């Protein structure tokens, strides 16, 4: 179906309840709307409140989006909680050209994910310490905003400013500023790493 939808870009976000996985998808969609895209964000969760695995989805397109099915073949994966790695089938439908942003201070090798680097395009796979970045800017290790900044840099699909606008609209005062700063820091980090990989 990809040929029929040249501008379709689908994101799947994994995390645990309480980490703002649903909010992340919503913010992505608001940022995309700001830039004139069509965007659809929706969650898939159970009835538990915190700690249980949660998935959310965001579709971007240049034309109205009609389909309502879950994202089966993500163009980009955002993983907010590395403890999900060997618990949930995170990589289902993840194609060879996909982008991956994983919240972790460790490398893919350290996480036992070398084969991922073989099967995909390594310059599109990044592990970033988003929780740490969040803790520094926000006082709490809530990685979602940081990861969205990273997503913008990694995929080039959205501008950092749009992401920050969406964040500030949702969170007021210091929470808004802290999250926006976390997004910026992660954006910078990812830009550097991607630039570095391109040069390498």
């Amino acid at each position, binding site marked *: *179906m990809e040929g*029929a939808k040249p501008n379709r870009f689908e994101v799947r976000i994994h995390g645990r309840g309480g980490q703002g996985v*649903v909010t992340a*998808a*919503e913010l992505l*969609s*608001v940022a*995309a*709307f*700001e830039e004139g895209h*069509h*965007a*659809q*964000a*929706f*969650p898939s969760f159970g*009835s538990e409140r915190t700690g249980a695995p949660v998935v959310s989805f965001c579709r971007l397109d240049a034309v*109205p*989006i*009609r*389909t*309502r*099915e*879950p994202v*089966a073949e993500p163009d980009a994966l955002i993983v907010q909680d590395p403890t999900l790695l060997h618990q949930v089938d995170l990589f289902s439908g993840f194609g060879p050209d996909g982008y991956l942003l994983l919240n972790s201070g460790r490398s893919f090798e350290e996480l036992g994910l070398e084969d991922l680097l073989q099967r995909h395009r390594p310059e599109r796979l990044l592990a970033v310490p988003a929780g740490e970045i969040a803790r520094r800017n926000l006082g709490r290790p809530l990685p979602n905003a940081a990861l969205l900044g990273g997503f913008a840099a990694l995929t080039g699909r959205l501008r950092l400013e749009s992401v920050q606008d969406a964040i500030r609209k949702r969170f007021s005062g210091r929470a808004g500023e802290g999250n926006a700063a976390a997004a910026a820091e992660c954006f910078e980090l990812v830009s550097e790493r991607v630039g570095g990989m391109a040069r390498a």
Partner: protein
Amino acid sequence: MLRQTEGSAAVAETVVSCRPEVVCAYPISPQTHIVEGISDLVRAGELEHCEYMMVESEFAAMSVCIGASAAGARTYTATASQGLLYMAEALFNASGLGLPIVMTVANRAIGAPINIWNDHSDSMSQRDSGWIQLYAETNQEAVDLHVQAFKLAEQLSLPVMVCMDGFILTHAYERIDIPERDAVHSFLPPFEPNQVLDPADPMTIGAMVGPEAYTEVKYLAHAKQMQALDTIPAVAEEFEAAFGRPSGGLLRGYRIEDAETVVVALGSVLGTIEDTIDEMREEGVRIGAMAIKSFRPFPLGEVREALAGAERVLVLEKALAVGVGGIVSANVRIALSGIQQQGYTVIAGLGGRPITGASLRQLFDDAIADRLPPLTFLDMDWARVESELKRLAEGGRSGAHAENILREAGIVAGRSH
């Protein structure tokens, strides 16, 4: 105003623009964001002269609505699933008394087994309650239908249910053009009831009616719904003229004019169906879709006209009439009686099981090749079912199937130690 927002939030805002005077709130997933949103707006002073009542059950919610509506107030509530069932008695009462209550049903499956995800079992179970039932395909349409619903209800003196898929629509963020408050106020004149509880002109409402008159009274309820077959398109037209976009009405055809195969469905699944249809059309397949917007009254004449020319009709539905099969398809069959055609009923998406484009593609290919039995269940795990049926045939434990399946799968501990 165009915004990227949550379906529930958009509905809440729009309902507030419709200026209900009494709103009843009892929480049930997945409607909670709607009643919460309305509470915030009322508290913030966005809606004057509105009593927001936090009631003790859904039965109470509908009952408070009945009292308020009978006393001349524009009234609103929202529910889903178990909550809709809990107010079943009051639903029939509201329609029988001709009260123009508007209610959002955030479609959700009914237990047992308990399930919080989307299907149409809830509103389908109350299809004969005398309420008008409208189904939204998108959050934009859900928002638009609420505005239309108040007008419809008050013109016809009948209650209206606006059905929107739970989680799939209620919890989805998408681009929605929220109707401007002033435009809604112009579209919706103040409620002027034709019968009202008022000390200045006392009347008795709710008397017992015996065999000598009940049939006539009941027929009049049916006659009003027949009238709605004209009023619904009329209000939809008025809405389009006022707000500049089509929504609602009785039916909507998609690439149906020359279609040999037509897929009939209600609600949000139509989006995925249309994507699949476009793909197949690219390959030259003559396939189209028909969205039913008004399920009650059921537009028999319009359905017949739209489908008469097709070779095959596939009705895809999110509810199951246990013991017989399809519900929507049964209604469609009535419309098509006498016409020779291949008809397929497909039960899909029960309890929130996702309906994927890939599965639909396979399904439609099978239908066109006439490989489908008359009744199918999309993406059914037959192995699991067959193993449970076999176990039962061998004299296995009776009781709840869900628990038995889990026990067999080793998920539930057999015994405590």
